[in-house]
């Protein structure tokens, strides 16, 4: 992969006016948003946050138990958020982080009230609209003690041919007994460069479930979230579903560090390439006992492309239990013929198996998004790749 040059992107002057009524967004953009998990017409959300290029264009909540605001406003209001802002991520980590720290465009600050169970998800969208836009984002999520929250965050570009860059920093704090489900759906363009950097801490008895769906072409994406299980009984589970069409380069993985006892770490990734490159990483480090961890990487090559699975297990004390399971290959002819014997033609059989393989059902996604993903699987199928 060619080195990413920050000079290729515009980091200044791409401001947009506030959109009070999100339903007024143009139809084709709405379409892109739905594929990124954001349903602007939906009433089934507790809050909606939207960032377009360099501006926060919308931020509305209808649940008083969850606070959602532009990160810049939050920094002002809470004296720079010293407990959270650049508390996990090192400002000097790399040039992208330095650039984002020096020239912040926005992002969301989401915080629950102690003990509050937020029933409807908070949806957020980070949108690239202007050609060659370079977007610097910093998100902070705080799940207070014994509270529950589901965030659906969609990142999308205006259209499939879009050129631009997204540089997103996210810091996630799950406090004692808290539960966060964080669903991220990416729908980038063919020429989009993406460099997110995510770090999180889960305290005693807390749970972090992370779902990641990427089905559309992206030029160059590199992400490697790191989660620390610092409290006893903390749990982290990562489910990823990745599809790489020709022209995609995806290097992604998850690192979970188990620093406390009775912690559980699990990462499951399902990857399909139809011509692109996927590097699927996973790293679990057990530093305390008892601790259990498991990495599962399953990959299918349909037609062409490259999958490189890199599961890493690291234990630093006696008694840690870690395992991994990785398989890269093709759909078994036996499975296709079994379904054909039930009356499905070869394409139907293949897409049924692929849908099962990707198994996005377990993520419990909103119906519209689930349907959209099903549609994408059908499209995958209609191409010559299968």
């Amino acid at each position, binding site marked *: 992969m060619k080195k990413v040059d920050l000079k290729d992107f515009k980091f200044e002057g791409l401001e947009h006016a506030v959109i009070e009524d999100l339903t007024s967004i143009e139809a084709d953009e709405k379409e892109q948003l739905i594929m990124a998990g954001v349903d602007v017409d939906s009433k089934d959300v507790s809050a909606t946050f939207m960032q377009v290029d360099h501006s926060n264009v919308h931020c509305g909540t209808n649940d008083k138990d969850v606070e959602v605001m532009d990160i810049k406003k939050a920094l002002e209001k809470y004296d720079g958020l010293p407990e959270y802002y650049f508390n996990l991520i090192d400002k000097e980590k790399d040039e992208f982080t330095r650039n984002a720290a020096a020239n912040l465009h926005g992002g969301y600050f989401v915080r629950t009230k102690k003990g509050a169970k937020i029933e409807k998800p908070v949806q957020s969208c980070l949108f690239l609209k202007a050609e060659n836009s370079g977007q610097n984002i910093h998100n902070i999520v705080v799940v207070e003690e014994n509270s529950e929250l589901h965030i659906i965050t969609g990142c999308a570009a205006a259209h499939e041919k879009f050129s631009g860059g997204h540089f997103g920093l996210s810091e996630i704090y799950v406090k004692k007994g808290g539960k966060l489900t964080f669903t991220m759906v990416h729908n980038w363009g063919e020429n989009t460069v993406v460099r997110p950097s995510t770090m999180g801490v889960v305290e005693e008895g807390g749970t972090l479930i992370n779902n990641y769906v990427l089905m559309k072409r992206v030029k160059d994406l590199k992400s490697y979230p790191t989660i620390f299980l610092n409290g006893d009984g903390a749990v982290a589970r990562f489910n990823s579903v990745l599809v790489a069409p020709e022209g995609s380069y995806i290097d992604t993985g998850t690192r979970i560090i188990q620093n406390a006892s009775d912690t559980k770490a699990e990462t499951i990734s399902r990857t399909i390439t139809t011509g692109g490159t996927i590097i699927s990483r996973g790293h679990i480090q057990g530093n305390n006992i008892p601790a259990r961890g498991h990495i599962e990487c399953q990959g299918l090559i349909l037609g062409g492309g490259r999958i490189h699975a890199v599961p890493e297990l690291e234990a630093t004390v006696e008694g840690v239990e870690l395992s991994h399971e990785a398989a890269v290959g093709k759909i*078994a*002819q*036996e*499975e296709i*013929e*079994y*379904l*054909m*014997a*039930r*009356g*499905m*033609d*070869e394409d139907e*059989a293949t897409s*049924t*198996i692929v*849908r*099962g*393989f*990707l*198994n996005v*059902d377990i993520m419990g996604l909103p119906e519209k998004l689930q349907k959209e993903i099903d549609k994408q699987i059908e499209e995958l199928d209609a191409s010559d790749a299968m």
Partner: protein
Amino acid sequence: MLKIEDLHVKIGDKEVIKGLNLHIQEGETFILFGPNGSGKTSLLMTLMGFSNYDVTQGKITFKGEDITYAPIYERARLGIGMSFQRPPTIHGLKTRHLVKMCGNGSDVDVEMLAQRVNMENFLDRDINSGFSGGEIKRSELLQLMAQNPSLLLFDEPESGVDLENMHLIGKMARTLLDGEIKPSIDLSMKEQKMKKSTSTCGLIITHTGHILDYINADRGQVLFNGHLCCEARPRDILEHIRKYGYKECVKCLN
């Protein structure tokens, strides 16, 4: 219904069916006997149309259509249904979903069908994942009930099945063969009876003959080394094999 003429089948370089003729009439159930490796399963796999089973000579006709080289799904849609011995596990594909798809567009009352084979608790499990021998058979029958075939291919209904399950499987196999009413939410019992069809025929492989306690088998033959021989009533054949083994068949062929 099914007509096989001078069928020759190869797996790789090896000929496994060597000039086989068989005719199964509407509503008829035919039992196939034969020692291990005689080509019984190969015959069923060939009739269903699986790859690796190359028809080198001969013709298979089903409902008047030449299906010798038809793709698997066309045979299934024409009405051939098969119970698999060792079906593959498909991760992420729920049993419920597959049973629905077996209906091929017709409305299938999955819950009701599942109750009949004690599979209600398996509907939300991945198909065949960790299923025991008896569970696999019941799951296969459940799919076939939704499929409602007019020719049932059943490879060793007894294998890996305990007595209690055998009873259930035998009963359900009979139900399928008798063309007994397919449960439907839209039709009253009377309407269902009017629609009742008795045209289902079967081709069943058995070693032990337990299945004969449950179904009305009309005819039987022994497949030996790729050839059919010894046509008789199934129970008589079974009795004969029990007494003398398959050695007698060799004599008969010579």
